[in-house]
């Protein structure tokens, strides 16, 4: 009973996502090698847990509960817990805060072929209200059929495969293109994999009830095709997405490039998306541009540094671009643990009147 009462207070969900920096750099060429979800993020496979201990961190046992208990073969469990403290400076104000950013529990049950997966957590908030029972939510829940080759069909709630699925939900290519916190739609998706490529297509509809999330309530389709080459040290992807809501229609096309340079042990990662937004009632259209360019490098085992440039241009006919530049230092002292220091400068296109964010995040996954 005590555990049942305490559990909700541990569930604070923000956005549990993948580390695209690990693709290509750790000898892993696709998301489903380390994650059960075809889009990456969330619950880790046995291989992903092994990698966490043997390749990414400075050691340790990456298995569930550090190997203290092994769930039966039909059940996979996990959790992501994140606490954060930050200081935000923008003249003349300084904002300092600390709060639990994410606590997500993951459950997957079934066979390698048929499965049900669910994420259970709570919406992240800096304030104690609303009460915890009103904050409980499930960002993802779906049933999936999957072949040994990785070819799959799934139905339920999840983000379509689209874009670089950064663990940072505030990345402009996520925040402004409909992939921000709790904006997951419902839908069906299918995908297939080959040695050098993968392809995914998704059809989606809005969440049926407002308490399930936020964002534009659009219906549409999304497609993603990625091809790897140069001995899996490079990848190029194209993508498209159409979303129709009561207020507007958004058509986006984009490209993603990934290049790992083994000699320098440096990964370059980039995405650019062009979106056309047409307004339903008042007419008129506008073109928008979102882009992301990042570099990351393991400087020593367990230590990753990186830099990224974010750009968002909500209307290409106006001088209204938003930009951010950030430096990331991530330390993985042991499997299950991560310490992440993010320092970001944001501003308009010329970084006039810039704001500074320094954010320290402690991440533990079960």
């Amino acid at each position, binding site marked *: 009973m005590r555990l049942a009462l305490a559990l909700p207070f541990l569930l604070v969900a923000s956005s549990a996502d993948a580390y695209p920096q690990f693709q290509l750099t750790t000898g892993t060429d696709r998301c489903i090698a380390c994650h059960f979800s075809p889009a990456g993020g969330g619950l880790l496979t046995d291989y992903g847990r092994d990698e966490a201990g043997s390749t990414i961190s400075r050691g340790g046992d990456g298995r569930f509960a550090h190997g203290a208990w092994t769930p039966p073969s039909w059940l996979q469990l996990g959790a992501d817990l994140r606490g954060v403290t930050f200081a*935000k400076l923008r003249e003349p104000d300084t904002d300092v805060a600390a709060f639990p950013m994410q606590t997500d529990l993951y459950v997957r049950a079934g066979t390698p072929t048929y499965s049900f997966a669910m994420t259970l957590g709570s919406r992240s908030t800096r304030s104690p209200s609303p009460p915890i029972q009103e904050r409980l939510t499930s960002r993802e829940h779906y049933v999936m059929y999957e072949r040994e080759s990785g070819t799959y069909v799934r139905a339920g709630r999840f983000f379509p495969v689209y874009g670089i699925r950064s663990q940072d939900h505030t990345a402009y290519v996520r925040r402004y293109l409909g992939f921000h916190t709790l904006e997951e739609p419902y839908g069906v998706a299918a995908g297939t994999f080959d040695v050098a490529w993968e392809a995914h297509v998704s059809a989606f509809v809005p969440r049926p009830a*407002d308490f399930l999330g*936020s964002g534009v309530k659009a219906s549409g389709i999304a497609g993603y095709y990625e091809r790897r080459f140069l001995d899996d040290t490079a990848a190029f992807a194209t993508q498209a997405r159409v979303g129709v809501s009561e207020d507007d229609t958004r058509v986006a096309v984009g490209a993603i490039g990934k290049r790992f340079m083994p000699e320098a042990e440096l990964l370059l990662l980039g995405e650019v998306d062009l979106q056309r937004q047409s307004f339903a009632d008042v007419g008129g259209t506008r073109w928008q541009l979102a882009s992301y360019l990042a570099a990351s490098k393991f400087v020593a085992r367990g230590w990753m540094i990186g830099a990224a440039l974010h750009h968002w241009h909500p209307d290409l006919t106006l001088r209204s671009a938003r930009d951010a530049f950030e430096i990331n230092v991530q330390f993985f002292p042991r499997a299950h643990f991560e310490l992440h220091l993010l320092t970001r400068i*944001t501003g308009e296109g010329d970084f006039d009147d810039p704001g500074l964010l320094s954010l320290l995040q402690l991440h533990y996954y079960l």
Partner: protein
Amino acid sequence: MHGAILQPACTTAGCHSKLTALGGIDLSDREGAYNVLTGHVCGDPPPGSAPRNYVTPGSAEYSTLIHQLRGENRNVMPPDMPLPAVEIELVGRWIDLGAACD
């Protein structure tokens, strides 16, 4: 105005979405946002004497919303990424032109 500026900038999950409605303010749909900001129902003709609210149709300078977006004597909104000056100017122009429900 809603689909172009308010929705993408203000209605994320932790802010003025229907889910959270920080400060009791829900800007997630056009009609509701219009009602919250102006105190009027979308579709009604603008009255001659508008109640003072976040938006005073016809006068950006008398509208709290503009001062909030500029961060004048109060916390700037949105706090994580203030609107570019040109978008604040567009909001101001929309108010000066009568704040139509569009």
